[in-house]
């Protein structure tokens, strides 16, 4: 090859290298956020899975007060190392072992009370109160769902089982859940996710009905699965995989594979298709967000009138009365989904409920009884119905 050709080839390669980088970068800049790009988005294909329809549901708020003092809870989280610390390490009840904040473990904690579960819960709680960090702050989340099928058949389900044995038992007795469990009226307990305030009160349910069918997300950690055994559960355990899980006509649970604070993974929420009304979402914490929940319903299932009728439960927006502009995105966007009845509480946050009310959304107000703090949302002992 002549020297001249070599130079020409070198120059061509130099130019080509410059052109490749320049051309790629320029197209990246011009095209990537242009309206033309939208033609390339993955198409939303509606699966329209038929989960059937039910006549109505009634939700009784057994407890939405998962903890009673934000400052104590967040102080513990801060002291233990933040929101990523494994929840079993906090030394919160019932897994307190006396070693102090952030130094606990499931194994050390359960060893102190395991022999008392599930029948001697008062004694177990007395022990853990002495060994745990801020036992007085523990409350819990749980609700009773009563569903009526189109043929009139009725079903009862529990969503979550609280945190404090003492508080949860007190709430169960207040709402008659203890008797319903003893009478085997409640068909199943759905655990929304592994968080302390939804799951750690499990022995209270087991005390009254250890044979109850239990549905948990399949992403439970080994500690959580062991706790189910240690709580005395003798019934059927269903580990629900991510996706749709039809239960009875008009009711399906749905597991979202999402990471959650305090080293928890996956959340199970509930869809109810109410005849002539539309879809109702019942959630524990809704870490996936209510809008994602609604969008998932749109993609996955068929529901009456293609209408989003209502919501009950924690919407996980400002659980610690904290805020972030992304929550404003939710407040600003929720209106276009057209929910007709919003029964929020728990980790929705009072601040968020007030923002919903200010935005003109149909928030069902509460009575602020039994240690619930504000009438801006549904409190402990309050009832909401859909389709009645």
């Amino acid at each position, binding site marked *: 090859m002549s020297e001249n050709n070599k130079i*020409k080839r070198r120059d061509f390669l130099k130019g*080509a*290298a410059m052109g490749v980088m320049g051309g790629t970068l*320029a197209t*990246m800049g011009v095209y990537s956020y242009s309206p033309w790009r939208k033609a390339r988005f993955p198409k939303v294909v509606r699966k329209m899975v038929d989960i059937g329809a039910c006549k109505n549901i009634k939700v009784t708020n057994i407890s939405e007060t998962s903890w009673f003092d934000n400052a104590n809870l967040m102080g513990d989280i*801060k002291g233990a190392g*933040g929101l990523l*610390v494994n929840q079993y390490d906090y030394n919160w009840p019932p897994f307190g072992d006396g070693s102090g904040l952030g130094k606990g473990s499931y194994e050390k904690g359960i060893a102190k009370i395991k022999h008392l579960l599930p029948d001697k819960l008062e004694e177990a709680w007395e022990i853990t109160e002495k060994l745990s960090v801020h036992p007085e702050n523990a409350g819990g989340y749980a609700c009773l769902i009563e569903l009526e099928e189109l043929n009139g058949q009725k079903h009862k389900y529990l969503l979550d089982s609280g945190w404090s044995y003492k508080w949860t038992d007190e709430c169960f007795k207040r709402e008659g859940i203890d008797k319903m469990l003893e009478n085997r009226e409640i068909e199943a307990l759905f655990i929304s996710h592994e968080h302390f305030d939804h799951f750690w009160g499990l022995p209270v349910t087991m005390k009254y009905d250890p044979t109850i069918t239990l549905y948990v997300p399949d992403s439970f950690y080994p500690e959580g699965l062991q706790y189910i055994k240690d709580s005395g559960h003798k019934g059927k355990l269903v580990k629900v995989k991510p996706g749709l899980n039809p239960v009875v006509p008009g009711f399906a649970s749905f597991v979202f594979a999402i990471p959650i604070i305090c080293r928890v993974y996956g959340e199970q929420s509930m869809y109810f298709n109410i005849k002539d009304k539309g879809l109702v979402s019942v959630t524990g914490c809704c870490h996936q967000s209510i809008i994602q929940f609604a969008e998932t319903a749109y993609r996955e299932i068929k529901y009456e009138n293609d209408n989003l009728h209502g919501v009950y439960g924690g919407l996980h927006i400002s659980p610690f009365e904290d805020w972030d*502009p992304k929550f404003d995105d939710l407040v600003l966007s929720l209106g276009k989904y057209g929910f007709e009845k919003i029964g929020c509480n728990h980790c929705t946050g009072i601040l968020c409920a007030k923002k919903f009310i200010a935005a003109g959304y149909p928030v069902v107000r509460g009575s602020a009884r039994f240690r619930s703090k504000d009438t801006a949302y549904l409190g402990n002992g309050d009832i909401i119905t859909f389709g009645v």
Partner: protein
Amino acid sequence: MEKFGTNYLEERNLVKRWPQPIPAIVSLVFTLIIFYGTWWIFQDPRGLMRMYTPFVGYMYTRWWLIVLIWMVYLFNYWPFKRSWLEKTNPITKGVVLTAISFVLLYILIKGFFEGIVGNLGIAYFNPGQLTKLPGITEFFAIEYSALACLMFAALASWLSPAWIVAFEEAPWQDMQQPAKGFSILIVTFFLSTVIYFLTMHSHMGILYYPWQYFTSIAPPYWEKFADTVSGNFHVSWIMCCTVTVWIVETIWARYPFNLIKKNWLRRVVAFFGIIAIAFAMHFFLYFAQELTWGAAIRGTRRAFAPDWRWLHVGEMAVFFLVPAMFITFYCGNWPKKFSIPVNALIRTVLTILGGILLYIFYYKTSHLFLGTQKGFSHPQQFPMIPTIWLINIWLVHHWFMDNWPGWKMVPKTADEIARDHEAEHALIEDVKWSPALGWGLGAGTVAGIAIYFITIELLPVFYNAIDIIK
């Protein structure tokens, strides 16, 4: 006249103790051990100080990076004399200079931001002031003020090095230290402050209830364009600016801007060119998420939320910075045998491949050893913290410790420095206009456009073919 560390980095000859790749591997292992040890001490949620709350750890990580840049790029190691830099044992230098950086970091956060700004000017920079407000717990007061500090840090981490890399220290390039350092520090800090108010202050203004209409624009002006009121939209492009500055400084060796001969033109084009490249990256990395996960849905959380997607753009950008740094610091900016554009293109391709592999590796495994949470979009999952923490350690190792033990520092002679300048000048002169270069440029541009469209076609296929998080 004492020159302190002016041009120290380019006037030192790092001599490999063993043939490559041994020094690179030794350096990687050595710095990863330091990384993991310090991660456990300072950041890990299971470790000693547990600063990964996450914003507290994030704030200190970002500001440490900036302090290191200030010490070396702005102040040229002042007040340490050149002879001390050249003769002191690398470990001693590393310990002394790192200790000083920690002291400066502490003074900056506790003294300047929390003490002065937070107590006398803007309450949200001081957790103590925030806890006086009703309803804010101590934890979130600390997190919010750390967030404000780190948003400021995002700007400073772009503008501080940009003044050196793009503006080449002008107009103070001939000034003695410490006057030069203070001049650049003041002007970049001033610019950071102005841009902070234009990009981040409104985010902080709507962080509190009710929205702070009297002190910030609410809702912010970017709401419609960015599909969110969150300041993460700005965090995204500013992080891309930071990454681009370092890409230009490391694997591109200031190409293509160094081809411009007129000083003022080169500097202005470099500064705004970096911003333009950053915006291209900012938009593309957002689009890449839309292609793989689907369109963002405003108001939702996590992986589908526009605010998180913008934040993730910045996170992805930093993944590409890690291999770029490694190529420059430990691989001698390989390859060097071709022309400047070809060298830069090859290094860019290697960096992109390295960044993608690191991204996959991080999300597959980080929760197993960093104490972070599994998943892409956990609200406390901030891959920028470990990646920047590692980069900080590499900066300490490369700037303060002369790549010890893989390399040994020998000062260059005047002849060697002159030969380096000549070689650099010759490389720049080698890229000059010719018809063949013009044809290559045209063909390359067409190929670049084609590469873009092929990439966006293949991206969803590639993403679906690998299972990053089970």
